[in-house]
């Protein structure tokens, strides 16, 4: 197995120890698998909690800090965390103003967060929930578990985080989060499969010369397998799908996201093509982020996320944030 790890069973635990060592500004409880902002609970502030399977770093643990999440719950690799973690996180960040759970739409995440919501209520914690389902690769229908949550999660966590930091009450933070979720669309592509520590080999076969369009962040297959495309062809294809669904009439936030194994050099090149398409369609981009933010271990590939923003959301996007994975402003 080609990984620089100790043993597969301990990958997440080891990573949490390493996070604790690297980030004194966070409280990393490796035993209970909860990463909490050191100054939590912040008096009067709504607490933001997210979580999901590990392997998507910096999501979510890398987005804990002032201006974004108050806590994150990392599950096993590609496996949603358990309710115990979420309840513990909620208790750690609730200042009495309530807690927002930011949940990516996967059966496992939804079920576990739902159980946690009930348990937290038993402990007297007020919990609201927002579901991120931004992946347009899968057509939304009664015959699926809905759309998957992917890159849009970053936008939700950032802007809801900024609203909470400003002191907005729970209902308002939840409303902002929902608005951002509703305004976000993602589309991804894989050139090579990720290798999970447990399996030790690529989770699927992608022959040379082929790519998988509409890949999920756990290597879930998407729309179709195709002959390899150029970055320009992919940008044309992805933007077609994205804009068809979003039909924006306001400026966009743009995330050109790496899945982990694709060099930044390629991501910037993809950004150039995405911007070309948007220019051709006369669609304005207010802010751009290029890099590895919502990854799938070492999967080669990328995703494009658009989020339509009004002035308020743009202000929340620009608001200061100070986390291991995203940092700007004061």
């Amino acid at each position: 197995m080609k990984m620089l790890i100790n043993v597969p069973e301990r990958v997440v635990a080891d990573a949490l120890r390493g996070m604790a060592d690297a980030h004194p500004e966070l409280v990393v409880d490796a035993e209970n698998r909860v990463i909490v902002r050191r100054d939590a609970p912040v008096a009067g502030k709504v607490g933001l909690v997210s979580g999901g399977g590990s392997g998507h770093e910096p999501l979510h643990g890398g987005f804990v800090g002032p201006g974004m999440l108050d806590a994150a719950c990392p599950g096993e690799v590609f496996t949603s965390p358990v309710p115990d973690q979420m309840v513990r996180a909620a208790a750690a960040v609730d200042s009495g103003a309530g807690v927002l759970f930011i949940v990516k739409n996967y059966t496992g995440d939804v079920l576990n967060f739902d159980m946690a919501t009930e348990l937290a209520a038993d402990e007297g914690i007020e919990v609201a929930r927002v579901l991120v389902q931004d992946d347009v690769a899968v057509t939304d229908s009664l015959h699926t578990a809905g759309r998957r949550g992917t890159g849009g999660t970053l936008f939700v966590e950032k802007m809801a985080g900024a609203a909470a930091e400003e002191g907005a009450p729970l209902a308002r933070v939840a409303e902002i989060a929902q608005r951002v979720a509703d305004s976000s669309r993602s589309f991804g592509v894989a050139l090579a499969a990720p290798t999970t520590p447990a399996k030790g080999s690529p989770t699927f076969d992608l022959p040379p010369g082929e790519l998988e369009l509409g890949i999920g962040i756990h290597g879930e297959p998407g729309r179709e397998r195709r002959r390899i495309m150029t970055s320009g062809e992919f940008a044309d294809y992805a933007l077609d799908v994205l804009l068809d669904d979003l039909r924006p009439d306001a400026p966009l936030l743009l995330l050109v996201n790496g899945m982990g194994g694709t060099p930044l050099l390629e991501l910037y090149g993809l950004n150039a093509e995405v911007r070309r398409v948007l220019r051709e369609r006369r669609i304005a981009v207010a802010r751009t982020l290029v890099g590895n933010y919502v990854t799938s271990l070492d999967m080669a590939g990328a995703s494009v996320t658009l989020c339509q923003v009004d002035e308020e959301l743009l202000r929340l996007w620009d608001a200061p944030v100070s986390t291991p994975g995203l940092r700007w402003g004061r």
Partner: protein
Amino acid sequence: MAHRDAGFVRRWLTEAARAVERDADRLTELDSAIGDADHGNNMRRGALAVVAALEKEPRTTPGAVLLLAGRTLVSTVGGASGPLYGTLLRRAGKALGDAERVADTELRDALRGGADAVAQLGGAAPGDKTMLDAVRPAVEALPDYAAAGAAAARGAADTVPLRARKGRASYLGERSVGHMDPGAASAALLFGALARVAAAEAAAGGVSDG
């Protein structure tokens, strides 16, 4: 009609854990094809935790054993299978209350209630290509344990031609056809273990029929 005690349920879950351990890689392979390649690992983690919990906190009634096992699954597995299998066992355990021994039909009814709870939680209907497609026929075949094991295996095999409508395999649409559902495969392991333990008990003549 036979009655079962806490030891029976414990032996069942221990035997199921062994089966999961043995077949974990196969479950992960199945989950690679139409999911995210973690089902074997999830089930193994849960099985080990259940065995450890039952050793650490001995329970004296079938209901309590199932309750503890279900709670342990919820707390250690995560993913879709953790809450779903956890609910199956927890709900069954709750239904059995604190009786020291339960009739086979009571166990069947309890597991049927568990399956109903799973369906309610996950919203899956028969034929949606989920664990329920193995759990349901197995439960219906009870109290004939051998038949239940066989029904679960058949139910799992029968998921191959289905198109998934729940869980992450559903994102695959047509491309989910032609693969066995990993959760149905693990459910077949669970009921296969039940059949073996019941058969062993019968062979040993250890079944009371009070």
